[in-house]
């Protein structure tokens, strides 16, 4: 992730969101997590800037499968799973 800031990461064009708002397995944790966890799947949502996400907490991306472009993005207590092979490949190139 070196050299890929959170804002530039989110700002590089469209991020196809295949599944958003992955709920924690913690019983009753929704009270801690807040409204962000209640988002439903948002097909093909485009995030133009990072304003919807927290600026105060770390943002971590985990490329789970380079061939399918499956990326888990962690921010605060949220995990959003993307499927974007192009982005996954760009991250791979950035890590080399």
């Amino acid at each position, binding site marked *: 992730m070196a050299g890929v800031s959170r804002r530039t990461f989110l700002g590089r064009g469209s991020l196809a969101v295949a599944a958003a708002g*992955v*709920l*924690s*397995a*913690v*019983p*009753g*944790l*929704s*009270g*801690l*997590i807040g409204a962000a*966890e209640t988002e439903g799947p948002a097909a093909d949502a485009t995030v133009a800037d990072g304003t919807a996400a927290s600026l105060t*907490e*770390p*943002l*971590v991306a*985990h490329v789970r499968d380079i061939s399918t472009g499956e990326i*888990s993005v*962690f*921010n*605060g*207590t*949220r*995990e959003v799973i993307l499927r974007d092979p192009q982005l996954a490949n760009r991250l791979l190139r950035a890590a080399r």
Partner: protein
Amino acid sequence: MSSHREAPEISKDPVADSTDLYAFVSPDEPDTVTLIANYVPLEGPDGGPNFYEFGEEVLYTINIDNDADGQAEIVYQFRFENHVTNPGTFLYNTGPVQSLTDPNWNRRQTFSVTRVDIDGGRTTSTVLGTELACPPCNIGPLSTPTYPALAAAAVHSLAGDVRVFAGQRAEGFYVDLGSIFDLGILRPFEQDHATFGLQGTGIGQMAAGVNATKALNVHSIAIQVPKEQLTANGRAPSQVSSANSVIGVWTAAYRQKVRVHDDDGGHVWAGPYVQVSRLGNPLVNEVLIPMGSKDYWNSQAPAGDSRFASFFSNPQLAQLLPVLYPGVFPKLAAYNAGPPAPNRADMVAILLTGIPAGLIPGFQNFTGTTQADLLRLNMAIAPASNPQNTGLLGNDVAGFPNGRRVFDDVVTIELRALAGAVLSLVDPAFTPDGAAGAIHQGLTSGPSDVAAMGTENYLNAFPYLGIPHSGFSVPAA
């Protein structure tokens, strides 16, 4: 151990490692139930200068199922926060600690308690307390000269007649670990062990039991709650036969999915919380779940435990006993050999569904057919006037596996059960071996001994587990 370091992954994360869970009708406050979840196994009392504490980034929970679906309807959440007075010293304390606000105490913890009620898809969170002080660890006569008073000050009364304590305690679980995990050396027939052909092992001359935990401490989260706050209908349970009287309890610990280590010694966390540890009945993940499934078990919710049912209905240890002790368990050997194939409905009932009415006169803690490893407590059963450490096996229906009290000899109870001591309850054609009821650890003088070796300091009042061993008085062995 009961559930100390019971799985490969959690054994490397002690602050999130649940070790024991207790649930019992409070003997001195019988309108309440006490729930105790222990974490941080095998604390050497002299383990300074960084003495033991809860994990600041761990979410600890005690969960209650009160409608027999294996899901939590009530969750008590506990979060901890560290406070360092002077980062310029290496010392835990710079002088005697004589109060919970003593400036000599350099590294302290506070905690919050939140109750979450879950009704279908709707959750309601109620913060019961914040910035509640934990006591320090028991260091010695110079650092913690008035330890019992310090610990007593850390028992907090919350709204709704709830009491809570979180901090170090003397380990209450007792086990002859060195014997049991040396390929199952069991009293009183150690001399009959097959020994794998080895000669001169010396195990025929075993002395009295050795309590492996007698000089160790643990960190306890204890909460005492009026019974009616735990039932599905909000009324105090009065009928043993009523489903409303039975709750299923488990503890679980969670961490966020991602941890990134920074170059400066710090780290950050991100992502949703995931379960890394859980505990209902003692010894389940320890003894019943095989190595390849232990970490997976710790990540799963109890409501899905039917996927593990074969480990309960045909336990490996029950198969091993007649092999390790040729001729000692002939009836169990015959049962294991079948036909039909072994189907230990007794173990499934004790650990996964609760015991239905009709098997034991005046008792039930059945929670339906959903298989889930929960510590089930029938709250309508009063505390025993003459408690037996063998619990239900000793005709004491207030003891394990009806919940679990601090002094219950759960190792002996479960070993006897695995050996078939109560299999006849569900399979009248089976006659237990005499040896099944004879297994003991050598750690108590008998069933009525509720102050087992090394645990003499149980308390008669909340939080029931004893004053932790002092580092000065109890050095490492």
